[in-house]
């Protein structure tokens, strides 16, 4: 079995690696330790370069101006892009575009003109409002935000959303609300503008994460035009599910990139740091930690590439994407933890990126489907029953 990259993939990986080394790492020296964005003029400079590379808009379909790359190449780029301080949640500070709200590609032409194209041009910010205090892993059951038809033209929404990234600074986004009965077919996706009366971001939910903080949204008699339904009434779950499944693979790969960098740092540090007259790298305890890092990274890499390869072949890859997300997030956390341990006190200091990766990697084991939910998906596919 040939695991080597194609010539094109090798060139792309090399380009992205040099971009991170030459553009992002020097830039990061002057940013706040927990920054998650760069000044607009700097972002423009960076995107000029990524556009010149032909890699801007990584998750934008080619017919909308994105690069024509497969999932394997997407994963390889994700692994490279995330190898810097903010890289887990803001790879290259958005210089390569990114997923944003992929569901808007399913919009009507009128909706695309108003909401999709401004987003693609970078003129507007968008949020994704699925999770609620009642739950996020099982939206088909947990969504309690209610949408009630008001005449022929409008719906009135009421409810609360929680863990919604970027809603306080977004121009519009998707709110998933229950228009019907229980279960999947009762959920509808609405495009909502954040300046409409009744849409209130009530607070930032401060967590371990430095980047893309979460918010809580209070929806109070929010009137939404009927034409702002995305897709079909009752079709919201399918839209949400599609996004979650598709993004899971690059999401897993981003965990891997930071883990690789943490491991490299640990190897170098172990060689130079001495205790009791010998380098750390000569100690069996440290060697075994580095070996475990290496194995965890290689295993995760193979699994995420397998999921990507099946996606590229048009084969079902739900089980593989769940395994990839589970293993990448869990293994990457262990790698960062060991690397932090090897660095001793320096590992927990803000002088190095390890403490930020440790905090943010902890959340990766929960976000986009916690590990336990991934196991639920895998078990269901293995055993072949619904497990309900």
């Amino acid at each position, binding site marked *: 079995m040939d695991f080597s990259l194609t010539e094109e993939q090798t060139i792309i990986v090399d380009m992205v690696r040099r971009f991170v080394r030459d553009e992002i790492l020097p830039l990061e020296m002057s940013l706040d330790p*927990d920054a998650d964005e760069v000044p607009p003029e700097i972002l423009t400079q960076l995107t000029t370069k990524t556009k010149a590379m032909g890699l801007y808009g990584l998750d934008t379909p080619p017919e909308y101006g994105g690069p024509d790359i497969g999932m394997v190449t997407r994963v390889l780029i994700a692994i490279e892009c995330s190898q810097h301080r903010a890289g887990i949640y803001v790879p290259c500070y958005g210089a390569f575009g990114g997923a944003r709200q992929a569901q808007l590609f399913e919009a009507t032409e009128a909706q695309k003109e108003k909401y999709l194209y401004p987003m693609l041009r970078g003129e507007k910010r968008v949020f994704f409002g699925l999770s609620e205090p009642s739950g996020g892993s099982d939206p088909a059951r947990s969504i309690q935000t209610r949408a009630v038809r008001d005449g022929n033209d409008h719906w009135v929404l009421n409810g609360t959303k929680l863990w919604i990234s970027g809603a306080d600074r977004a121009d519009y986004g998707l709110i998933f609300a229950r228009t019907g009965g229980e279960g999947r077919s009762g959920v509808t996706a609405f495009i909502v503008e954040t300046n409409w009366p009744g849409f209130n971001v009530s607070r930032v939910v401060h967590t371990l994460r430095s980047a893309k903080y979460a918010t809580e949204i209070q929806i109070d008699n929010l009137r939404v035009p009927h034409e702002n339904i995305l897709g079909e009434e009752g079709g919201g779950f399918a839209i949400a599910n599609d996004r979650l499944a598709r993004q899971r693979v690059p999401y897993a790969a981003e965990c891997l990139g930071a883990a690789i960098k943490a491991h490299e740092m640990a190897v170098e540090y172990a060689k130079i740091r001495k205790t009791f007259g010998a380098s750390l790298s000569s100690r069996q305890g440290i060697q075994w930690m580095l070996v475990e890092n290496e194995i965890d990274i290689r295993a995760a890499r193979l699994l995420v590439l397998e999921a990507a390869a099946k996606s590229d072949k048009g084969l079902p890859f739900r089980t593989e994407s769940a395994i990839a997300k589970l293993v990448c997030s869990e293994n990457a956390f262990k790698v960062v933890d060991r690397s932090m341990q090897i660095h001793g006190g320096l590992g927990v200091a803000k002088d190095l990126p390890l403490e930020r990766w440790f905090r943010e990697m902890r959340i990766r084991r929960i976000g986009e489907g916690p590990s336990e939910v991934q196991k639920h998906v895998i078990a269901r596919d293995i055993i072949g029953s619904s497990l309900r």
Partner: protein
Amino acid sequence: MAVRLEKPWIDLNISNVAKVAGHLGVYELANKNDEIVYIGVADATSNFGLREKLERELQQPRFGACQFRVEINMAYRTRHIELLQVYFYDRNKLPVGNEDTNPNTLGRLRPGGSIDQR
């Protein structure tokens, strides 16, 4: 990361404060002579972090504050203390807006470098 907050000052107005995100961190306020009048912190008790704190400062600017700068930092508590310590080291007093803080409770910092005022 420098011990002293050495970023350029930004005018304290509605437009500039609106651009500040809701992160946790620290901030400094200065008067028209670029003199620091207050060192503040946006901690987890704030609903909207740095932006909320600066919006409040905008409503009632203290001691002639008309400029600000921020640092996004999850270690906001220790960073706030450090900034107060280094200010005290540089000038042998606290900013006029922080005079309710007892400098004896801050601990002593002797960083390298200096500022013009010392």
